[in-house]
């Protein structure tokens, strides 16, 4: 049963030594079979497609449901053989886990290609047809190309067993410097710049929205002030110092409850945390329900049709 997995010895129809011609042959055959299956599904009538989609959706989700419900093997050591059917299925599920996980990683990589195709199509057409702002589309396409080329070139250098150590900047070649400029100099700094805009937006939103129009709004504003002030060490030092001055050396005292840090802690622990947890329960149950409907193909809406 474990011969199904690529990482298990001995070799089986589903695995081959790493880097061998045998492995490449099997990969090509699998790829062709996959393409054939996709084409067949596209040509199939809708009445055939729906059950196929429903069955594959069910099988894909079934692994994770069984993985959750089935008793896990306890005290499993390397080289152990399963001691019965329950243990055997548990072993199989555990061994399959990293492989099933990797399937989703591989899918994500392929789907990224679809996204790149969309970008290339839209912006390529804009450049070819000379639309307004075609210049920016050209910049985008050039950016995709540059990052891809120099990023891969740099990675090849880093993984190469020969050549100088790239840990020292003095050893960097042209491609390493360009990759560093594009990634650290442009991409990361632009990311940071965009994130910094949020500070400005929060300020304008707070000025516009935090008005004491009702009792609830006033309560909200008061708690917001307390929490904001509690982040400022200078303010908490001063205000808590006043309380310390009044209560003297008594430690801890009733007056400690009036320290800004204590009030803020109480608000966070007693009001904020349970509220967030309550919302979390709702969202979690909603996600469970949605997952159940998708897994069992119970959705009869635009998505499933």
């Amino acid at each position, binding site marked *: 049963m474990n011969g199904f997995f690529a*990482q298990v010895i001995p070799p089986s129809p589903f695995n081959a030594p790493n880097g061998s011609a045998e492995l490449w042959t099997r990969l090509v055959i699998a790829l062709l079979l996959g393409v054939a299956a996709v084409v067949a599904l596209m040509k199939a009538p809708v009445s055939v497609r729906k059950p196929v989609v429903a069955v594959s959706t069910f099988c894909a989700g079934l692994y994770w449901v069984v993985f959750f419900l089935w008793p896990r093997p306890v005290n499993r050591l*390397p080289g152990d053989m399963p001691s019965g059917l329950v243990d055997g299925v548990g072993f199989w599920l*555990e*061994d399959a*886990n*990293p492989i*099933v*996980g*990797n399937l*989703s*990683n591989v899918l*994500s*990589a392929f789907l990224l290609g679809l996204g790149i195709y969309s970008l290339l199509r839209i912006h390529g057409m804009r450049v070819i047809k000379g639309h307004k702002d075609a210049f920016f589309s050209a910049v985008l396409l050039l950016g995709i190309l540059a990052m891809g080329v120099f990023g891969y070139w740099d990675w090849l250098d*880093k*993984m*190469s*067993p*020969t*050549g*100088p*150590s790239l*840990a020292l900047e003095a050893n960097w070649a042209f491609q390493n410097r360009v990759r560093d400029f594009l*990634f*650290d100099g442009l*991409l*990361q*700094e632009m*990311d*940071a710049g*965009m*994130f910094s805009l949020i*500070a*400005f937006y*929060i*300020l*304008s939103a*707070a*000025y*516009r929205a*935090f*008005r*004491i129009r009702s009792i609830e709004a006033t309560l909200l*504003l008061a708690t917001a*002030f307390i929490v*904001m*002030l509690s*982040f*400022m*060490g*200078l303010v*908490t*030092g001063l205000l*808590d110092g006043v309380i310390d001055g009044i209560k003297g050396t008594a430690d801890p005292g009733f007056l400690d409850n009036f320290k800004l*840090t204590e009030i803020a802690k109480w608000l*966070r*622990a007693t009001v*904020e*945390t349970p509220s*967030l*947890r309550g919302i979390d329960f709702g969202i979690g149950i909603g996600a469970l329900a949605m997952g159940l409907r998708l897994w069992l193909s119970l959705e009869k809406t635009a998505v499933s049709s």
Partner: protein
Amino acid sequence: METPVTPPAMGFAEKLMSVKRHTLYLLLIVATSVPTFFSITLPNKPDQPSIDFFTTVMALPEGSTILIETDWTKSTRGDSMGQMQALLRILMRHNIKFAIYSTADPAAPQVARDTIGRVSEERRAKGERPYVRWEDWVDLGYFPNSEATNNAIATNIRKAFAGKTEVPGVGQPATDVFRSPVLSHIQKVGDMPLLLVVTASKTFDIIVERLYGKVPLAAMVTGVMGPESTVYYASGQMVGLCVGLKGALDIERMMESGVNNPPDKPVVVNKKNPEVVPGFPGDDNEGNGKAYYPTLHLALTLMILAVIIGNIGMVLTRKGAKS
């Protein structure tokens, strides 16, 4: 020809309510630029979650290996870079090996490597042993699916990272990471004394879901993720939590003063455990936490003032309308 109508002049109250957003933005730029020119030290009292985080990391056995999920990029460097820098300083000073991996952002591993490189160079400049990739730390890479990856780590860490290779040194071929001194003795995730996540997204949720009970967990999160992550600290599912810029500053201060230290007049008191944890007094402990804390003060002060001004304007306008 119609006579142009001049709108009536705005009253004081209306002016307070209609401050242009560009004026606010300009004030924010000025306020947050001030600490760039003046070095300001502000008082700070570390919170209990940060104290627990610090004492946990300081108690790690020397030479042990921990796993760090690093899911931040330069967009959150205000919080995360200071936290990561402080963490790496402690780990390197205690000769603790670590393996990093990411599940939230493909750029995260490079940002983490850059930070590790900077802290290592800092050590080299002081004449201390720099941290060497392969010998002291390894990069396990980026994995797009966080749930599946962390599930795999919980089930079988060697299979989760099977096939990952690193170059041990110049002139050597890429080798399985589990042959490195960092991971050679690790059979399961429970063999590590700690799994840390430095994140700006909700990957700590996933870590707790998949790995709680298998290995002790701790997190360094941005200020925005603080409220969500506090529930896990409060329930005991995380042994320590460092939140936001203040959390980074807490760690930096404790690195300087220690905890329950000196015993007769401690600067930072751990209410849960009286054990003395000496820090690294006099060493290079300051970082982004100290540098950005005054900026945080000024920005929050400006926000509070803006809210107060807006509300004063609203109250005066209502009073004027009533009369």
